[in-house]
């Protein structure tokens, strides 16, 4: 059943549209991640959904009611939603009061307020801090208070706006653990904005990609990461090999695509003569010193052009007649004894290729 729905939402700052005809439908108990680069319009959209800001045009339906219409409906709807902002906001009062305020504003009885506040303090691991002034907490602790304040009202819908942005890995892990626990235990719907694709993938069952104010694709994490609908989405989700090609042959099982002077085997629906983009994720490329006799249909000899070490991984760019970027572990790179100019073999499966129609 649909919980919240945005219909043709536009937002304009000055002469610039920052949201363009955004349509989205979220069901009860669904966890949705809105991913996109910084400045894509994610926060703007969340603020409109949570009725903090009014859209330039468009409508928001909550439980089937148009909540952009009347102020009374807005307060009622808002009281069934909660919002955790990117920058943790706490009020200049104790941790306990910070968390309890949502219930007090709803005129709940003091006994209930005390019981629920203690429960939520336990949930976010802040019982020992309840009497401390929230302003004296660290960023991660403040964010846990903000999450507790958002949860205590038992919202139907929780908005999380980059809940771990600008946090150290330890604080991020703690917040994610709290969120995972909440998502497992409580059947609340969540819409979270994040520019961290992996976070979206870990926590959400459905992902939407927003770029330049447009919601370009909505689907499961697997769908978004492996079958992006266009070049922008592909680039954002880390498909770094985007090659121009043309279908030269096709039979029932296999499509042959000419890329430069090479031919790639792919599984694709496009017909002979159609111009396509060939998308291959870097992690789907396997490097070897000799031609592999594996099931991979594509095997190309190439010269190493570039080697970049990023954390535990090594990114290797090989010129196989077309540029191909792959990722291996440090250990694998050492075993291959990779160096710039060395000739190696790059292989990838036909099923690891995603193709898109190319218009230009």
């Amino acid at each position: 059943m649909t919980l919240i729905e945005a219909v043709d939402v536009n937002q304009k700052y000055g002469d610039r549209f920052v949201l363009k005809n955004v349509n989205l439908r979220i069901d009860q108990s669904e966890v949705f991640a809105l991913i996109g680069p910084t400045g894509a319009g994610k926060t703007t959209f969340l603020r409109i959904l949570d009725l903090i800001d009014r859209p330039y045009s468009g409508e928001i339906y909550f439980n089937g009611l148009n909540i952009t219409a009347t102020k009374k409906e807005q307060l009622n709807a808002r009281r069934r939603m909660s919002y955790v902002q990117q920058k943790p906001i706490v009020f200049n009062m104790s941790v306990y009061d910070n968390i309890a305020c949502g219930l007090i504003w709803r005129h709940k009885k003091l006994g209930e307020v005390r019981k629920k506040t203690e429960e939520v303090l336990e949930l976010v691991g802040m019982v020992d801090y309840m009497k401390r002034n929230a302003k004296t907490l660290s960023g991660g602790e403040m964010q846990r208070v903000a999450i507790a304040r958002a949860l205590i009202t038992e919202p139907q819908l929780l908005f999380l706006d980059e809940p771990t942005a600008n946090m150290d890995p330890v604080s991020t892990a703690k917040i994610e653990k709290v969120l995972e626990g909440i998502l497992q235990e409580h059947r609340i719907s969540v819409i979270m904005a994040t520019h961290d694709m992996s976070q979206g993938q870990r926590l959400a069952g459905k992902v939407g990609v927003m770029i330049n104010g447009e919601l370009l694709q909505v689907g499961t994490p697997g769908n978004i990461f492996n079958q992006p609908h266009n070049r922008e989405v592909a680039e954002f989700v880390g498909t770094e090999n985007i090659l121009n090609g043309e279908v030269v042959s096709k039979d029932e099982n296999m499509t042959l695509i000419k890329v430069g002077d090479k031919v790639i085997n792919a599984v694709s629906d496009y017909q002979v003569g159609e111009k396509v983009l060939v998308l291959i994720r870097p992690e789907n490329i396997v490097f070897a010193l000799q031609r592999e006799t594996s099931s991979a249909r594509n095997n190309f000899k190439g010269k190493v052009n570039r080697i970049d070490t990023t954390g535990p991984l090594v990114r290797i760019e090989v010129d196989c007649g077309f540029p191909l970027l792959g990722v291996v572990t440090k250990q694998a790179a050492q075993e291959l004894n990779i160096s710039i100019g060395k000739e190696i073999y790059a292989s990838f499966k036909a099923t690891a290729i995603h193709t898109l129609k190319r218009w230009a």
Partner: protein
Amino acid sequence: MIEIWHGFLKAIELIVTLNPEVLEITGRSLLISASSCIIATFICLPLGSLIHLNNFKGKRALINLIQTFYSIPTVAVGLLVFLLFSRAGPLGFMNLLFTPTIMVVGQVILISPIILGLVIAALSGIDRAVPETAIATGANNFQAATLVIREARYAIYSAIIMGFGRAISEVGLALMVGGNIRGYTRIITTAISLETSKGDIELSIALGIILIVLALVINIVLNRLQQR
């Protein structure tokens, strides 16, 4: 010089022995100024919140106008109140002229721009995310405004104390609309003015010392609040 020293000693004696006239004048001063301060606060807090939390055309100009009235001469307010409440004035039927009530009214008019302007400044110092978070947590507009006032409370206390300081130290308004009637509308500043002109400097010095002590207390409290 001896005469001044003698006056000073006599003034100390008046204070230490809790001279009834000194106590009565001081008590009335505190009562009138505190009353006007409380009334002005009740007007300025909601009004300041309304101005701060709403965006409307001319908001900046309105704030500039309020700030201009910080330094309005007390006699100008006195003249306005006098004209309004004199027998021939539009509010003359209320027969309030030369009563403590009209002194409170005058002081409310005098200090409201100060408290209002400083309340708006205090609220502006609070991150906009605070009311937004309150709204997103389910607060209605009144609850969100109350929270913002609470967040800005120390700066607001300062605003109120500034207003009180202005009220208790003004003389022109109290003279014009209060009339400096002994035992009725005489307050510290008007008494100092009168007694000095009569040559009774002991009482003037005693009241002057009390006024300075009050100013000192106000200043200490203000500093303490601003350090929070």
